[in-house]
């Protein structure tokens, strides 16, 4: 029982992080049908900004978090303005390759700015871990889950209650129809880029005390987030949540009951299986097209 709980805690902590990243992927896909392979690098930027603001400049926690997320959002907007909007023939494959290029560029820039070493910052609060039936729930895990809940509730409210959010959703459903009723679709795309990058920033911020941050951390974690988004159903907010948690918990139980050497394999095998049974993911909101 104690082990089971511990695996579960480990799983939901990682799962919340994967879910936040998956939401970023889904959000952008919804508005632009684009997979941003530089998304993992936005996570890296978020973490490294936290390292700079907390570890080097010793800012208080809240301003540091807000500043870090703002920086990543700005980077996302800049990326859209400079690399995506300027493309003459915006075909999907071209844009996707641009995002791959951007990820390499951002990793290189990260290496030049922060160096090649790994860094770490202390947890957000120094409470001792909670003891639940012998299993330890870390204070940072509670922070991660709380921040994750806040962002997803915030996003849900934004999409359902505000005019801008509704306009974004309309634009995602049908660009043409949205254009006819007077929604500025280009602005919506820019906004989607900014929000998606901000989600990457959030993931980077909450993960920075848990793990060791370095310029090359984005690739693997981005890939895991992408898998989570695929697993849940690309383009769906709920799908991203379910996919993220499922992947995290599967990984933890894979370690516990199968073998730590097969950790990634267990999770990815299940992913393959689910995609085989339900090609659109668990919650399939989009029609699946084959290339």
């Amino acid at each position, binding site marked *: 029982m104690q082990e089971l709980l*511990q695996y579960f805690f480990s799983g939901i902590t990682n799962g919340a992080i994967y879910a936040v990243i998956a939401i970023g992927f889904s959000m952008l896909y919804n508005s632009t049908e684009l997979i941003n392979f530089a998304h993992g690098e936005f996570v890296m930027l978020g973490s490294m900004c936290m390292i700079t603001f907390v570890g080097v400049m010793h800012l208080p926690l809240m301003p540091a978090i807000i500043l870090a997320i703002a920086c990543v959002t700005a980077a996302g907007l800049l990326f859209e303005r400079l690399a995506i909007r300027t493309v003459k023939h915006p075909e999907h494959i071209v844009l996707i390759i641009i995002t791959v290029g951007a990820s390499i560029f951002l990793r290189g820039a990260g290496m030049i700015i922060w160096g090649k070493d790994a860094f770490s910052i202390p947890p957000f609060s120094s409470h001792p871990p909670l003891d639940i039936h012998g299993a330890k729930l870390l204070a940072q895990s509670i922070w991660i889950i709380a921040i994750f809940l806040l962002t997803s509730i915030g996003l849900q409210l934004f999409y359902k209650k505000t005019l801008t959010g509704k306009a974004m959703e309309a634009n995602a459903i049908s660009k043409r129809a949205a254009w006819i009723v007077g929604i500025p679709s280009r602005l919506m795309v820019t906004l989607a880029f900014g929000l998606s990058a901000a989600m990457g920033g959030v993931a980077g911020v909450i993960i920075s005390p848990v793990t*060791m941050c370095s310029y090359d951390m984005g690739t693997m974690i981005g890939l895991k987030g992408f898998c989570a988004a695929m697993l849940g159903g690309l383009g769906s907010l709920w799908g991203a949540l379910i996919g993220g948690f499922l992947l995290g918990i599967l*990984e933890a139980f894979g370690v516990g009951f199968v*073998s*730590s050497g097969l950790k990634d394999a267990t999770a990815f095998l299940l992913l393959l299986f689910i995609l085989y049974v339900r090609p659109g993911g668990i919650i399939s909101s989009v029609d699946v097209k084959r290339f």
Partner: protein
Amino acid sequence: MLTITTCHPLKRIITLVVACLIITSPALAESGKAPYKIGGIFAVTGPSSMLGDPEKKSMELAVEQINKAGGVDGHMLEAIIYDTEGDPSKTVMGASKLINKDNVMAIVGPSLTPTTLAVMPMIQKAKMPFISCAAGNKIVQPVDPWVFKTAQSDIMAVATIYGNFKAKNIKKISIITVANAFGESGKEQLRAQAPSFGLTILKEETFGATDTDMTAQITKIRQDNPEAIVCWGTNPGPAVIAKNIQQLGLNIPLYQSHGVASPKFIELAGSAAEGVMLPTGKILVAGLLPDTDPQKKVLTAYMADYKNKFNTPVSGFGGYAYDAVNILAAAMKGSNGDKEKIRAGIENTKGHVGISGIFNFSPTDHNGLGQDAFVMVKIVNGKWELMK
């Protein structure tokens, strides 16, 4: 008139050639002998740059010092260094450039075991004296006549840790290793040497090099209460493990490998580094060594020179390249650039006091280090402390 105009260009060419000869000849006369070219291939950038960067710098430092002292038999050394980025295919490209284009006499590096293994077939074919800076045992076992290495091997690191267990009467351990060549090689040795020290390995777990959380593995290890945990990996993974062990409130001593023997580990793990024990080369604790230690003088001189030249504190890894270049330069003496003679010279090196230990090479031992190359240290109050 006509004769002059046709003659003029020719004259000009002749003057040019003569001028060229005049300009270049003093340079030739000054150095006297052509420089000896030696190649270096290190992971200067990329994820393993913490190894390759200090190695490159140390090679430059060693070459500069040797040249200042008059070179090798009057020949200056010239280092040609390529970056491998820790990538085996780039390493092979770099090595082939060194062999075919630059015509070097010997090669130092690469920094990693996988990259070293990737270039070894090529080295054997080219009959090139080759001193690797990587740690894996597979490099020198079985012995290849042309391949040497200066880094301490896992065998000695494991033996040093296990010796400590024996002294403390620890019998049951669990191990957790990183899922890459370094971890696999460590796991192999941990398994192989356990019986001879009377140890039982209860659990063997692994972790990914960039994983963010290892509490699941540690929970699994905790189930059967081992007397000690041995973690085998390079930063940052082992620091995450130290943190997770602290967070889960485990009261089991943690032993790390020499792969994290750098101040960076203490910085990353923070308070979780307290009480962690690990084997390390003597460079990390040079200041704590007794004056009778034969390596102390060499170590302190190298550390001071490195700091003066590059204005960064010394790393534990640069010494591999520094030793390699010095051993190579000694072996080149009297070889006249003959590769077979250089090779034999390295193989016959005896009692070379280096950074990583005292080297005694032989036809059956191409690493040349003994058990004394490692000491056990413990982290106390964020500082290294020598263990007896």
